[in-house]
């Protein structure tokens, strides 16, 4: 019952086979018993209240029932929720209660969703294993000795383990797709600008994008339909070219032109991932899509560009955390400067400090041209290279993560090796492209994901391709772990 999709639950709710209250209550109980640590905060009272409101709509056959009405969802803890603690998994925001809702949260509420609580994550979304959270690591439900990926590790783990039906994550360099891949669920980063970032605690503003994590491609698309709206509170948000991202999802993909950029299939890709990728390609080819190998030689520079641009933007964005308007405080500082240095020194974790320092270095006088400006120029070249490829192809297909879920604490002492786990997902953020990860198989009882990247505003098409793949491959139906 509990590992059905949001769409199936929606049907049961409409037919009044079960109430949202019962489902919400059951999931809240499961979260309480869970060892996965996927939530930082749960909001039992307000969740049950929303579920009762939703049930009222179903019993009245109300006209404003949406695919989200009465569906229990999780919101990543860097997305502001009015009157619900929002920490971004940082000690520096341990008691922060936003006085407003992020625009996406308003959309969820208007659609009648039941917000269960706030998802654990890497601190300020900086990490690929969920181990930089100040509230403890999240465990991978398939193997609790393994990481769930990051930074939206709580969201992916909860969706996989039946601790919510849908989740909102954020993706700056793969933070939705990589954990979705490692936990065997679907995760999508929409085109930059499609979803408002208002109320998202900023990390790298030119890269950040909020997106859905779900148990099926269609659920992902249905959630995107609710949140993809232009917002006057985010000047980078755009009017969606589509009213409905899922209307063509059932159409076949015969004659679609797909390309595999060979630079994504390096010797760093685990052999199990590589073998699975080849099998996925034959599924796509049997579905009638053509597949061609291409070269995107600038791919090898994407990681360096990302680790200059993201920390540079982060060092500016995180300057607001000074222990004045919100955050922790210290007692002994003699003056403001000392106070701010102490608050930030004790409030931020290791990875966050590392990135603030890298960003400050890259932006500092004497180094700006060599690093930040250079990275922005290479960013232009990478975008041009993608644009050329999308003149000929509908989408690119790659593995989502080069490796399977890894052991907890196995990469903590080597930041660069941790950064490498995002090598296949980072380019989409650099170019602002939509990308989706969909389950494509298992190795040693650990999930593997397949990634589709489309041109800007190609969101609808990659959903269609991913849906067709999912329908044939059926890996999303496999949830065999003990989740209670």
């Amino acid at each position: 019952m509990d590992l059905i999709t949001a769409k199936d639950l929606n049907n049961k709710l409409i037919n009044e086979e079960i109430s949202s209250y019962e489902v919400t209550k059951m999931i809240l109980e499961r979260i309480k018993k869970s060892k996965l640590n996927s939530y930082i905060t749960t909001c039992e009272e307000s969740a049950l209240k929303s579920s009762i409101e939703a049930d009222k709509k179903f019993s009245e056959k109300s006209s404003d029932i949406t695919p989200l009405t009465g569906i229990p969802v999780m919101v990543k803890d860097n997305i502001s929720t009015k009157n619900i603690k929002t920490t971004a998994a940082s000690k520096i925001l341990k008691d922060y209660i936003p006085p407003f809702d992020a625009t996406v949260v308003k959309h969820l509420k208007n659609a009648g969703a039941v917000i269960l609580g706030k998802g654990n994550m890497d601190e300020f979304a900086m990490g690929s294993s969920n181990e930089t959270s100040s509230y403890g690591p999240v465990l991978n439900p398939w193997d609790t000795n393994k990481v769930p990926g990051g930074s939206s590790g709580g969201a992916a783990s909860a969706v996989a383990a039946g601790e919510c039906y849908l989740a909102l994550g954020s993706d700056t360099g793969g933070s939705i797709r990589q954990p979705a891949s490692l936990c065997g669920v679907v995760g999508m980063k929409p085109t930059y600008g499609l979803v408002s970032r208002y109320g998202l605690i900023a990390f790298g503003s030119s890269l950040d994008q909020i997106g859905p994590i779900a148990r099926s491609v269609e659920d992902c698309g249905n959630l995107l339909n609710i949140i993809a709206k232009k917002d006057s509170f985010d000047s980078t948000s755009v009017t969606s070219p589509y009213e409905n991202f899922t209307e063509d999802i059932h159409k076949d993909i015969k004659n679609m032109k797909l390309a595999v950029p060979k630079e994504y299939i390096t010797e760093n890709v685990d052999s199990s991932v590589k073998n699975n990728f080849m099998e996925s390609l034959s599924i796509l080819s049997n579905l009638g899509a053509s597949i061609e190998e291409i070269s995107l030689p600038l791919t090898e520079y994407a990681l360096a560009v990302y680790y200059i641009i993201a920390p540079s933007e982060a060092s500016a964005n995180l300057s607001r955390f000074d222990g004045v308007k919100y955050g922790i405080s210290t007692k002994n500082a003699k003056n403001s400067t000392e106070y701010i240095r102490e608050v930030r020194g004790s409030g931020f974790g290791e990875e966050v400090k590392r990135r603030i320092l890298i960003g400050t270095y890259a932006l500092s006088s004497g180094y700006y041209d060599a690093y930040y400006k250079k990275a922005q120029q290479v960013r232009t070249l990478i975008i041009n290279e993608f644009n050329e490829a999308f003149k000929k192809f509908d989408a690119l297909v790659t593995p989502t993560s080069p490796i399977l879920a890894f052991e907890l604490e196995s990469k903590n002492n080597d930041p660069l090796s941790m950064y490498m786990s995002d090598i296949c997902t980072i380019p989409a953020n650099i170019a602002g492209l939509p990308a989706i990860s969909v389950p494509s198989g298992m190795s040693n009882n650990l999930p593997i994901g397949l990634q589709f990247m489309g041109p800007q505003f190609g969101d609808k098409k990659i959903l269609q391709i991913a849906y067709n793949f999912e329908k044939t491959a059926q890996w999303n139906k496999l949830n065999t772990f003990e989740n209670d």
Partner: protein
Amino acid sequence: MDDLTREEILKISELSYLELTDEEISKLQKELSDIIRYFTLLNKLDTKNVELTGHTTKAQSVMREDEVHPPLKTEKVINNAPQTSGEFIKVPPVLE
């Protein structure tokens, strides 16, 4: 590139308003240097006359009507400040 010196790390930490322990400083000397050395990979590319990309949307100076919206309630906002006095936020001395 040689490893960053202790003084260089201190300089960056000062610009970043981050207090670091001695242990953190020596660890960061190696870690930051490794990461920055990795960045020099970009020098292989000629970027003369290439435009900069700041944002991937082409949006520039987005304008909207200047409409009045109800502001947030002072108490809700001020409740998050670690030190307050009445309606005000309290901070340590700025000028000594």
